[in-house]
């Protein structure tokens, strides 16, 4: 039950026209190594789902996929941090479907948890209502938010054992554990691959049941350097 794979093996499963979810939140907790490889592969017409577009200012995170116009449709809650995505939206090269952030993650959770949808009040009496079914329960009106599910998901963890138990660190957990549940084939990129038994059972954020492949990403040392550089170069450190 060793799920460790080479990046090229996983890339063999990525095809034009696929739907793909990516973990991360404005760049933190994003599977950077896999994203880079997908950008290089040139696959196109992707439907991509992520909480937001990229780290503020672009040039990082999902930015190359927007810059390369590999994404046909982007399902998210916010796109303003990515000049590449906003540009593609303006010119008509990108279709965007916006959901309130809480509804977005709940739709992904529904997709992973076998729910047919959830009833929310978020977005009532706004543009979010458009095209959605409404239902009244005990006199209160709700929107029906349907599940989101993808062909593949790429998540980013700190460590994984070879069976696919994934440990996260701090706020880099964000959308990752939910996204891990909502795809046919979930790939976990991690800083370190460890032996089964090395992760405290109480620190497993994504149990092995959800993970189909494990990819060695940046080592933790490299990972620290990458974020130091992006934060330092954008003036975010004191």
């Amino acid at each position, binding site marked *: 039950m060793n799920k460790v794979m080479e990046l090229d093996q996983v890339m063999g499963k990525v095809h034009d026209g696929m739907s793909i979810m990516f973990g991360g*939140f*404005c*760049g*933190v*907790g994003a599977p950077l190594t896999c994203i880079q490889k997908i950008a290089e592969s040139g696959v196109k017409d992707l439907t991509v789902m992520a*909480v*937001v577009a990229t*780290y*503020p200012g672009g040039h990082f*995170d999902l930015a190359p996929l927007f810059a390369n116009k590999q994404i046909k449709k982007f399902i*998210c*809650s*916010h*796109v*303003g*941090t990515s000049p590449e995505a*906003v540009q593609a*939206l*303006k*010119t*008509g090269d990108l279709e*965007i479907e*916006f959901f*309130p*952030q*809480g*509804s977005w*993650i*709940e739709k992904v*959770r529904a997709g992973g948890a076998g729910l047919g949808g959830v009833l*929310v*009040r*978020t*977005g*009532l*009496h*706004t*543009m*979010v209502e458009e095209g959605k079914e409404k239902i009244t329960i005990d006199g209160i009106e709700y929107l029906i938010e349907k599940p989101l599910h993808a062909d593949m998901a790429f998540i980013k963890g*700190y460590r994984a054992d070879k069976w696919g138990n994934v440990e*996260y*660190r*701090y*706020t*880099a*957990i*964000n*959308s*990752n*554990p*939910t996204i891990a549940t909502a795809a046919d084939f979930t790939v976990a990129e991690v800083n370190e691959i460890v032996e089964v038994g090395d992760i405290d059972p109480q620190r497993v*954020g994504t149990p092995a049941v959800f993970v189909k492949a494990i990819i060695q990403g940046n080592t933790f040392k490299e*990972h620290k350097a990458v*974020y*130091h550089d992006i*934060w*330092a170069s954008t003036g*975010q*450190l*004191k």
Partner: protein
Amino acid sequence: MNAKEMIARRAAKELSNGEVVNLGFGIPTTVANFVPEGVEVLLESENGALVFGAAPKDGEEDPDLGNAGGLPITMIPGSACFDEATSFCIIRGGHVDTTILGALEVDQEGSIANWATPVAPGKWSPGMGGAMDLVMGAKKVIATFVHTLKGAPKILKKCSLPITGKGCVSKIITEKCVLEVTPKGLLLVELAEGVTIEELRACTEAEFLVADEVKPYQL
């Protein structure tokens, strides 16, 4: 003191001890710097943090510690991290006492528009992020912004941009005044030094009532 700092200082006085608070980008973020002494609040960040510290010094950053804008933060005593689904369980589930948000427009019915500007015909940017969840879920929604944009009123009879939430704002704080949203309409309760009611009406499109006793702007 500039307008933005005035607004942030005034907004900070809305917070009381033990409250769960979510601050939007811009002016709201700076409210954290002015929380009154003796008031402890639980700051929540929608990416999944409760209680957190300011940006670290170069070399002390942690690659796995960012805020809702992807920018580095620090852990301090009382901090907790959780996933995004839990974060929005907090927000949508009514567990946030107060949210302070920026706004492009608010109107006299308490509706707020802060997510959408047109980028092309029929296309909007940048997206609502967590703002719609916050205005729906938080017990108290405070809108903070500089009173006018290039001289044009931002407090309108009716929002012209796509709204974030209908009738959800409880209080409006600008550098000129504090307005409460009441069932009868907007009510002026505080006026900044040197601003007259006539001047305020001139730069405010919305109708507003004037409280029996308009207080000085609390700083």
